[in-house]
């Protein structure tokens, strides 16, 4: 009988302690991406593009070449990178504000172009980095610093279902939503993220994966309460699932 490591920090992750708040599931997502990079053995072949948002420092945690983008423009930056290096794996990670508010045009058109990149979208239904303002994904009734009485759909409208929306486009090869609120979903999330990378590697086209995540700090809840709040409030509006898989044509 000998002891074997069944879980360790992935090799393509640095030793740096992450800056995320305690219990913020951004950290889980960072790790899953590194695990996928390890499993596909593409660390030396990958260029990552980051957001402006709480994950802005992700270059400190992934041991890969990295390109910063301006707020919302990661898909455009990734397009520039991919066109220069069509043989490399290019992926981006963005928050909900980044991808579904200011960056709507860029993600829609990266998808429409069928750009061969993998886009990860961390949906925590709030602007984390700037201190808890309403996001495009904020649930109706959810309190944020800019919807002090809760999001009022009459004034501020409805959450954007970006991932479903992108599935409508012919350029989108893969579109799915996952969550990381419990171990089973974490495992599933990793599979889906991996698939998004594989879709790119196989040249099948554009892939988007939305990942539901928590923001204990700005939700004003403990990490454990946040997990629960996600399950009870976000999941019903943003159901988990694959909306489009390669080969499907929407029309």
């Amino acid at each position, binding site marked *: 009988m000998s002891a074997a490591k069944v879980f360790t920090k992935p090799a393509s992750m640095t030793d740096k302690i992450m*800056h*995320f*708040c*305690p219990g913020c599931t951004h950290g889980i997502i960072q790790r899953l991406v590194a695990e996928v990079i390890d499993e596909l053995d593409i660390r030396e072949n990958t260029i990552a593009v980051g957001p402006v948002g*709480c994950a802005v420092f992700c270059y400190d945690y992934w041991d890969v070449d990295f390109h910063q983008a301006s707020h919302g423009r990661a898909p455009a930056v990734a397009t520039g990178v991919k066109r220069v290096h069509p043989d490399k794996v290019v992926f981006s990670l963005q928050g909900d504000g980044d991808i579904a508010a200011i960056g709507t045009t860029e993600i829609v058109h990266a998808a429409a172009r069928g750009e061969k990149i993998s886009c990860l979208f961390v949906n925590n239904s709030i602007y984390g*980095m700037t201190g808890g303002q309403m996001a495009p994904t904020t649930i109706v009734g959810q309190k944020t610093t800019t919807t002090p009485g809760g999001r009022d759909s009459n004034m501020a409208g409805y959450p954007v279902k970006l991932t479903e929306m992108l599935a409508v486009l012919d350029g989108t090869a893969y579109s799915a939503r996952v969550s990381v609120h419990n171990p089973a979903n974490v495992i599933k999330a990793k599979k889906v993220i991996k698939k998004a990378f594989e879709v790119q590697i196989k040249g099948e086209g554009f892939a988007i994966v939305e990942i539901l995540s928590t923001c204990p*700090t700005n939700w004003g809840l403990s990490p454990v309460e946040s997990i629960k709040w996600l399950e009870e409030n976000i999941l019903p509006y943003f159901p988990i699932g694959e909306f489009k898989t390669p080969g499907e044509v929407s029309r």
Partner: protein
Amino acid sequence: MLEELIIAGFGGQGVMSMGQLITYAGMIENKNVAWIPSYGPEMRGGTANCAVTISDREISSPVVTEPTSVIIMNQPSLTRFLPTLKPGGLLLINSSLVSADISRNDLRVLEIPSNELANEKLNNTRVANIIILGAYIESTKVVTIDSIVESLKKVLPERRHNLIPLNRQALELGAEFARLAKV
């Protein structure tokens, strides 16, 4: 009178609100006041400090680079702010959290084990920073304890006013400590 105070510690230690209370009290006493916060680069839980200026003249610059007093709530802040303190300035340290090994001898130094004091004397570690505030006021007489209590009334929401007596106790406890230590 021109008092230029820096309070420094971790985010979440109440550093900002201590500064605001003093500023508010100064205003209540019709002094000229200013408060400037400064957050470290970390998102949460990193270092944080604020600068308070209280003066009976108009304040030229509210930016404090050579403070007359410094309150230190964590170790890194000691290293950072010790050199900036004016000669003859007041250095207040929460010795429950910071081990002071002071390289300068041109200062008035007061070390308060305020977490222990809070725990032992008031049975509530939450007011550790208020104890330090009391000691600061006793040592500088910049504002009165009454004014601080007055500002607490304005700053705290109505439903928290029941905490005011405890805070006054803490202020007085700190003041007493300072009196005894005779800085």
